[in-house]
């Protein structure tokens, strides 16, 4: 099992969710995060003074998936999250040692 973490643009969430749904993905967890990267921050004005805000709103998706599905899921997310502009985000893959479903106590691929 692997954990896929994807940082995407907030307004792409619906598209990504739909795409994953079509692939039969049944579970994921989402966090509102702020991203700092190559994408330029926006300017805010406060009583005539300008400030640059570097941290931009992003969505982090976390999915635990079977090893065999990793590649196609990563590709699916990438396609759906793509705008082609700077700031589209990153996808990380981490190793997972075990998964437990709280409700049943099932573990491993059963628990995903």
């Amino acid at each position, binding site marked *: 099992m692997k954990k896929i973490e994807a940082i995407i643009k907030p307004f792409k969430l619906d598209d990504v969710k739909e795409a994953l749904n079509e692939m039969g993905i049944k579970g994921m967890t989402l966090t509102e995060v702020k991203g700092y990267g190559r994408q330029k921050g926006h300017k*805010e*004005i*406060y*009583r*005539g*003074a*300008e*400030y640059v*805000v570097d941290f931009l709103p992003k969505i982090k998706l976390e999915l635990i998936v079977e090893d065999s599905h990793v590649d196609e899921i990563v590709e699916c997310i990438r396609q759906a999250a793509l705008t082609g502009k700077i700031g589209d985000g990153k996808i990380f893959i981490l190793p997972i040692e075990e998964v437990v479903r709280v409700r049943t106590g099932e573990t491993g691929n059963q628990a995903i």
Partner: protein
Amino acid sequence: MIQAGDTAFILASAGLVLLMTPGLALFYAGMVRSKNVLGTIMQSLIMISIISIEWVIIGYTMAFGPDVSGIVGDLSWFGLNGVSSAPSSDYASTIPHNVFMIYQCMFAVITPALITGAFAERMRFGPLILFSLIWTIVVYNPVCHWIWGVGGWLGNRGVLDFAGGLVVHLTSGAAALAAVLVLGPRKGFGRQSFIPHNLPMTVLGTGLLWFGWFGFNGGSALAANGIAATAFVSTHLAGMAGMAMWTLVEWLHRKKPTTLGSVSGAIAGLATVTPAAGFISPISAIIIGLLAGIICYTAVNLKNIIGLDDSLDVVGIHGIGGVVGTICLGIFASRAVNPGGSDGLLAGNASFLGTQIFGVLVVGTYAFIISWILLKIIDMLFGLRVSEENEVTGLDLSEHSETAYN
């Protein structure tokens, strides 16, 4: 003789002015960081208690009681002694005396609340209370007497202030400047940006303030008559013109019109027209509002250059607004509009402009010096600022053991 229409109008106006204090609390609180929301609110709100008590005991008689050498009222009305629901012979003869008293109480309450914007996010609550209480006694009450009290020396010299350009806005603006100098900037000032945590809250506060300002300025006619109408119209027109001008200037200067800019301009226009409201024509009110928008915008921007951390721009908006408005009254006042007022420069009476400038100098200097001394003393005795750790934690937790949002 008590007139029901006038009484209804001044009671409604008193309610409106009371509403301005929570309105101001929200206006200010929206602009601070989320860890200082309640601390900021409390600094305004608590004035309702402290200053109202002070007012009924000693403030009202100091400000409006029988005159002592033009300087202050004597103590004959101590504890509201003799202030009943019969009309006063000196003030507002068509309404109960206690209605005039409570209406004026609301002005005394909001004035020190205005100051708190200057040292937002770093003042201790206990010393704040002490400062506000003494400040009202030594600054607000006498200045109020000088200008509005029967026999007050500035009033006698012909200085006019319809609804508090000197009494409210300049005294608080001058005290704000003193406070900024004494307390110093917030930790991180100049390096970090202190962006408002909740602008809709500031917009709401503006709405309540604007609404209340009709009572503040309109009610200052002390009757539901043509002067009240003039003041009401001036208030609205200067508010809208200030808003228009600030929005426009920011749009040109920074390429975007901001919401905070619009509401700041509105408050600037409303504050600036306050001393003049009942004495001028609608067109003059619009000009005053436009001037307020551009002058206060410039003042607020200069602050960043000078490096004074007047957190929520009390000096730039209320202080400057009070000065500009009082001087503009010297220019635009017209006895054709209000025979009880004066003619100003444009009506050929340059001396009245001189009188108004004199009023500004006297009140500004007095309020600044006394405030500065008072703050220094309280700072030495008790310490005005929260500790650095508490400033980092925020006033809500450190001063009040609460958090605004959960």
